[in-house]
């Protein structure tokens, strides 16, 4: 499967402040009652965006000034908690193309990369400055350069980090491993015969 390389993401950003934004916050489990990922986008951050009665809490995502934003900015340990791919799926299906945060939980990071959603890590002070900037001037275009690992927004420029394997995968359009895995099936078969599995009773 050849995928288009992802070298740069450009777009307006929305700040979703806070540390340890977990996968239950990103997509509460009750919205995972589905057999496809379609429609997950509208439930992104559901419980912080709406009251239990469904009234808007005017979360940044729902503020008119951030409408159409494609870059999510958040704090430390983003995506901690469960392995549910529903979380990055909800982010992607809500129209986001990248996440900038302090750092990321491992499984979330891997799941996101596989979907072609780059997650880059920035210093807390840079994150704060970026959040402030895009709150005050929501029209600012944020550019994430995945080759140089650098973010530019207005007069701000700062470095970001990403695991080299993920970075290379995105740049080469090989972030979804399936094709490479399938190509080695003969080797897999040979190895499988040496690895016992559970025995059928």
């Amino acid at each position, binding site marked *: *499967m050849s995928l288009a390389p992802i070298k740069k993401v450009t777009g307006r950003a929305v700040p979703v402040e*806070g*540390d*340890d934004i*977990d996968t*239950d*916050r990103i997509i*509460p*489990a*009750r919205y*995972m*009652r*589905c*057999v*496809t*990922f379609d429609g997950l986008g509208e439930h992104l951050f559901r*419980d912080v965006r709406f009251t*239990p009665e469904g009234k808007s809490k005017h979360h940044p995502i729902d503020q008119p000034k951030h409408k159409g934003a494609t870059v999510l900015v958040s*704090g*430390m*340990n983003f995506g*901690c*908690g*469960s*392995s*549910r*791919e*529903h979380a*990055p*799926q909800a982010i992607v299906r809500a129209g986001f193309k990248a996440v900038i945060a302090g*750092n990321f*939980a*491992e*499984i979330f990071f*891997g*799941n996101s990369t*596989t*979907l072609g959603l780059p997650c880059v890590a920035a210093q807390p002070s840079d994150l704060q400055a970026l959040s402030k900037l895009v709150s005050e001037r929501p029209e600012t275009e944020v550019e994430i350069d995945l080759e140089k690992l650098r973010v530019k927004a207005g007069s701000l420029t700062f470095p970001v980090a990403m695991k080299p*394997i993920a970075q*290379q*995968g995105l740049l*080469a359009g*090989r972030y979804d*491993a*399936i094709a*490479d*895995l*399938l190509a*080695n*099936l003969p*080797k*897999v078969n040979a*190895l*499988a015969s040496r*690895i*016992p*599995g*559970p*025995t*059928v009773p």
Partner: protein
Amino acid sequence: MGKTLFQKVWDRHAVGQLPDGSTQLFIGTHLIHEVTSPQAFGMLRDLGLKVAFPQRTFATVDHIVPTDQRVEPFQDTLADAMIKELRKNCADFGITFFDIPSGKQGIVHIVGPEQGITQPGTTIACGDSHTSTHGAFGAVAFGIGTSQVRDVLATQTMALSPLKVRKIEVRGKLGPGVYAKDIILHVIRTLGVNGGTGFAYEYAGPTIAGLALEERMTICNMSIEGGARAGYVNPDEKTFAYLRGRPYCPKGKDWDAAILEWKKVASDPDAQYDDVKVFDAAEIRPTVTWGINPGQAIFIDEAIPEPEKLPVADRASAKEALEHMKFKAGQRLAGQPIQVAFFGSCTNARVSDFVEASKFLKGRRVAPGVRAIAVPGSQGVTKVCQEMGIDRIFKDAGFDWREAGCSMCLGMNPDQLVGDEICASSSNRNFKGRQGSPTGRTILMSPVMVAAAAVSGKVSDARQVFA
């Protein structure tokens, strides 16, 4: 130079290096459930692929399955659709499904060990972060996302980079009323909820060696709450004794041969670790969480910390936690009234958990106004509890005794908190909204502490309640 179990298992299962530098890792055993697998089967169909090794994948229903109504069609039409979808996928692709009528259904991390599917020295993957539970048997077990479930179905492999290994050595004697759950809550509190990022945790030392397999499962289960993607205990005689005679384990001569192999897989005495942390079990007391992540925990006789006195990085989250929980810094949790007691989940809903709590519950009653539910981790657990009369003890005490499933651990079925109810819970996550109500409040603790909270109507030190 010796190797750790992790390195040995990794090397043995590595197919080779992929172009991006990651490892193609063979997955010995794959477990699936109704929530994270349907989309993977969908992707497989879209790509026109088959399941490469259907005899290495096992399925059950746990997350969404109702724990009261078990006659199909379920009132909850979406739950009904999801179970039918899994049934169809398993039939179409030739996968063993521990369906409700099989008598073997339950939470995937309880069913695997119970059936002897979870074995030492193997790699296990499942689309669920608590897959680390299986590490208790000396397996390297990971939680994976749905795209990786697709990868494993299609190729029995996945792309992964090796983890570092941190040895968590626990020495000393556990005090009375202190359990495996308290050990792991204490470890997470000490090392932080993301202290384990990039690591597999090897739990070792005399205290861990002294724990029964089901207690080791409790510890490995919560590795992910400390940020570690996998956690394991080296296999020993207790491991083999637990597995002997289980349905999916080798028999006869094959069993003897398997034991020889499994012994070899344990970490060498001179193995090199990337990090070592030592804990004294004698210092650990019954532990409860006061916040919205499992690291926000205190001993039952401690006060909730002042956010200002915590490390800078933890302050904002502590403030947010106090606001959500409606607790105050300096407050003690003992005496805090509860409205719900949840005894269940893959952390603590095995036979030994019910047996231990039943000793204290016998002849006692759940406090008026407390909704107490007991949810066995599997139909197998239910059966043994019934044979031992333990379900009776729980029912007589006023617990609602349910059918097997995840239930209020994540509130995907009707078992949910209402409003800002406080729940004493034997589960593993206290995230905001975790138990089904956005404003619900979860206090994690050991199952015996849940029993103590249920009968006293408030968070209590079980050692005093059951003195």
